[in-house]
């Protein structure tokens, strides 16, 4: 683990003031390797390292009796800060209908997450949720969402032979007429480099003016995490991130990359395929996972 490696780097350092430039350099190198191995994107690692290096050369470490512990603390605290500090919440308003758009790459877990979100909103905010099937492309996508929602007694809206922007606009009207408190939109998976599909999201956003646009990403996402998050954020503005499949043994460095480039935080994690496998995200847990 990184903590052990840092202890190894500093074990020969004894006593106050005997820390060298060389020790610090080696410690920084270990941190860089650990972050890259945890799938944090290259350029994010670079800026993170610059910040940590500056702090590592400061008073606290140089004068510390336990430099490796101080070092580890600097890394841990910076990770937690980058990940948003405290756990974030959903932007559910007390009055009116809260509209949440769920977006992301193909297969990232959006459809499953929409059902989880709906149940969460109902149980934690007391709002009646309406899930919208806005993916007319993937074979049996609508069936999948309908089955998932039916299993959990969640209302679902779908419209045959209509384009996603129209489906969403109609769903919003339906929600108003039937006193729903929240509308959760399941969109088709798409590449951030696909102009036509990104334009579709822009159009949906215009039609329904969402309060939250949540990017669902696989916890095991690699280096492209930063490019993908940036792509979605620049086009439609991400308000939060959900990391799916956190029940895998992936390190989850993608969380850092995506938070860094969007300035948003991971608010929830998916921890399984069932509707209840959904939890709030705690920054210090991922920080520990990365430092593992």
């Amino acid at each position, binding site marked *: 683990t990184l903590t052990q490696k840092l202890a190894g780097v500093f074990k020969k350092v004894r006593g106050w003031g005997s820390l060298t430039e060389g020790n610090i350099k080696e410690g920084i190198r270990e941190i860089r390797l650990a972050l890259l191995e945890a799938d944090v994107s290259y350029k994010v690692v670079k800026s993170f390292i610059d910040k940590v290096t500056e702090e590592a050369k400061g008073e606290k470490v140089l004068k510390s009796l336990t430099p490796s512990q101080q070092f580890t603390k600097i890394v841990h605290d910076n990770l937690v800060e980058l990940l948003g500090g405290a756990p974030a919440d959903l932007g559910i308003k007390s009055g009116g209908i809260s509209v949440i758009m769920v977006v992301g790459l193909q297969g990232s877990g959006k459809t499953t997450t929409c059902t989880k979100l709906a149940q969460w909103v109902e149980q934690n905010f007391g709002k009646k949720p309406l899930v919208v099937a806005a993916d007319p492309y993937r074979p049996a996508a609508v069936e999948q969402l309908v089955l998932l929602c039916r299993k959990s007694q969640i209302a679902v809206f779908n419209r045959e032979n209509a384009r996603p922007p129209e489906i969403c606009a109609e769903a919003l009207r339906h929600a108003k007429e039937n006193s729903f408190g929240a509308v959760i939109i399941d969109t088709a998976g798409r590449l951030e480099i696909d102009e036509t599909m990104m334009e579709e999201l822009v159009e949906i956003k215009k039609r329904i003016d969402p309060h939250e646009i949540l990017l669902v990403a*696989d916890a095991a996402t690699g280096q492209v995490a930063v490019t993908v998050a940036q792509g979605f954020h620049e086009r439609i503005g991400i308000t939060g991130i959900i990391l799916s499949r956190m029940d895998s043994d992936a390190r989850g460095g993608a969380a850092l990359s995506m938070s860094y480039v969007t300035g948003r935080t991971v608010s929830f994690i998916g921890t399984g395929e069932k509707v209840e496998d959904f939890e709030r995200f705690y920054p210090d847990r991922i920080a520990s996972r990365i430092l593992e």
Partner: protein
Amino acid sequence: FSKKAEKKDEIIPEIEEILITSDFGVEFTQQIISELEKRVGAYEREEVLAVLREILKERISLASRAPQPAQDSRMTVHLVFGVNGTGKTTSIGKLAFRLKKEKRRVLIAAADTFRDAAIEQLSEWARRADVPVIRQGQGADPGAVVYDAIDAAYSRKVNDLIVDTAGRLHNKERLMEELKKISKILDKKAPGETQNRLLVLDATTGQNAIEQARQFNEYTGVDGIILTKLDSSAKGGVACTVSGMLGVPILWAGTGEKIEDLVSFNIDEYIDILLS
């Protein structure tokens, strides 16, 4: 002499960045770089890239080194597996379409009896590929579906039986045991046939793909890799690391969501795109 060191200081970090951001991983990148430093003379850009290409081709298992199909076997059984959402079901539709165009008799087995609408999704792809599907109901035992499918494959004199399985995380022991059981049924009930264990990897996945591959190799063995979503901004470098590690080729690449979007993986074209 210092001019060479200057050039080296420019190009080596650049190569390192290309490999790491393409998901080759720190360890594999370091191995490639140290091999590069051994072989390169002057650090001229052209030469460095040529040597890099050589090294990559050596380390990534090529399809030509894949085991040859069994001698008098008419049928190939393809078991397709991988973690959730990687593109297994879609890739099976594409593969069936392609094999059917090559005039082979193809049959698909819907052995993902767990995920909602998985059977419907696969059946739609089979319809598009004009290939029959052996299916039972949601919640049926996947082993039972496979059992039926092999009977049907023999009676219909099928050339390719392609088995779709539920996505499963490699760290879920019970699910991995289930897959192992399915694999054993295929071995037992189609003993003389060519058995192809295909691991589907998503090009957007990071280093976790290495552990995925290790576990699947442990439970069922891996004969080839299908690398999906190469049309994304991801390079899928970790699949190359896996290929080298397991000694198995990347057989197919998924390049989109349409039925034709499957290509034979070509290492030269891949490296061209990587270094472009």
